[in-house]
């Protein structure tokens, strides 16, 4: 199994991770090796097998629609890289 440079670049965009040009050859090898390992799955006969997403096949628990958490905005924003007037700051999006 190989993975192309184009695939890696596309996936890096989806994952929002910037890659430098010199990182790509090693990633082609490493990700290709991992996908070769994963390709063993093809050999398994999984006809009529239900996918398992939770070991105990539990379903999402619901709780009563009540207020249980108090507002802790100041505590949460105290650890943010940049805030102003109770808002998180990011670079300008709309000129």
């Amino acid at each position: 199994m190989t993975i192309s440079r184009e695939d890696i670049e596309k996936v890096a965009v989806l994952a929002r991770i910037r890659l430098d040009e010199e990182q790509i050859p090693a990633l082609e090898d490493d990700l290709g090796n991992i996908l070769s390992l994963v390709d063993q799955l093809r050999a398994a006969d999984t006809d009529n097998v239900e996918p398992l997403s939770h070991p105990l096949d539990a379903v999402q628990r619901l709780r009563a629609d009540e207020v249980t958490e108090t507002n802790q905005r100041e505590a949460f924003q105290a650890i943010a890289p940049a805030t102003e007037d109770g808002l998180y700051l990011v670079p300008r999006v709309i000129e």
Partner: protein
Amino acid sequence: MHNKSVAELSRELESGKISSVELTREFLDRIKAEDKQYNSFIAVTEDQAMADAKAADEQRAAGNASVWTGVPFAHKDIFCTKGVATTAGSKMLANFVPPYDSTVTANFRAAGAVCLGKTNMDEFAMGSSNESSFFGPVTNPWGLSAGEKRVPGGSSGGSAAAIAARLVPAATATDTGGSIRQPAALCGITGLKPTYGRVSRYGIIAFASSLDQGGTMARTAEDNALMLNVMAGFDPKDSTSVDRAVPDYTATLNEPLKGLRVGLPKEYFSDQLSPAMEQQIRNAVKEYEKLGATVKEVSLPHAKLAIAAYYVIAPAEASANLSRFDGVRYGYRCENPQDLNDLYTRTRAEGFGDEVKRRILVGTYALSAGYFDAYYLKAQKVRRLIQQDFINAFKEVDVLMSPVSPSPAFVQGANTNDPVTMYLEDIFTIAVNLAGVPAMSVPAGFVDGLPVGLQIIGNYFDEARLLNAAHQFQQVTDWHQKLPQ
């Protein structure tokens, strides 16, 4: 005092032979003097520990003590601790001070235990050697006397090394694909990964949510039971926590093992296992026969597909979980972002290490349009087959026994060139996580002077039986008492 177990230290405190302040001082001094050679701690919280010890002594004097009141221990740095940096071994979270406690840390606080600090780990728990930590690798106390720097295993390598070096008597850990059992085996201590859902995941920094499980590490099975008594239980804050009564795990430690049905999965005694390792495991199984167990061979026919299924499911879930690290709300942020996309992509490129990035990329690929069915859905179907293997095996036997790792602790740097070589380190541990069943690692001998771990796997919610089996083994063997030179 530092060679005593949690149970013994608790009795010393109760009898008044020593105070928690004295005990905490002794362990803190040991960490200061010795941890430079191991790097097992990311942070030592000395002032908080001494204050907690003083409070514990007062509580004991007032007659309100639990078993844990005043006993020192440590948390893997993946459990959020209110007011104390929690890094998950990553640059991304190097400055992250959680505004809340995980349920596990809150439980230990309520029990009066004294946390000495946060232990080192592979970045975001992704690794089997503790070499991917942003805070540097951890060195295994075993092998150092021969001048060799060996890995402690991972990802809970800091917790395991600290216990083996007698810097703490116990430490919390987590296990997504073997991250409790493999380091416990490589460091010669005892560790337990509980059933998925038994211990709350609330406040444990997430790696792969359908596999992650918090658990215990200490020298003895009895101490693991004491830890699980504090950790296990239903938690409404964790959507996959199981609402089921928690037994006193120490109550059944002394049950006789006569009639215990042991299964040996033939797939786990394969070519990957060195003959010297296999001999140690077979010797351990013989001890169980002497204790009255019956032994038979069983089969887990899909176990060979576990690593392949895991390296789709775990990276896929990781890629989703780790998308929250965006440089906006907490954690690392790159300098001078040019625009929002630059902020995201550079923060993540600079904040994550190589192994974490590889797994995010693999997971993103497996979940992307056109590949979802072939990878993720297929892996989930194989996961069902692997689970069914365990269900079938437990119709015939009470526990399964196998090696934990194919070889003992390897030298640092030996497996870092090819990620797949490192992944194969978990060949005997990963199926357990996919099935969600509990399993332990118990010291069971030595190969070339390095510890070997026996894996004992149980049926769902059978932690008490595992601890019983491990405790009885430790009454007739002394592998868990051996000290690195």
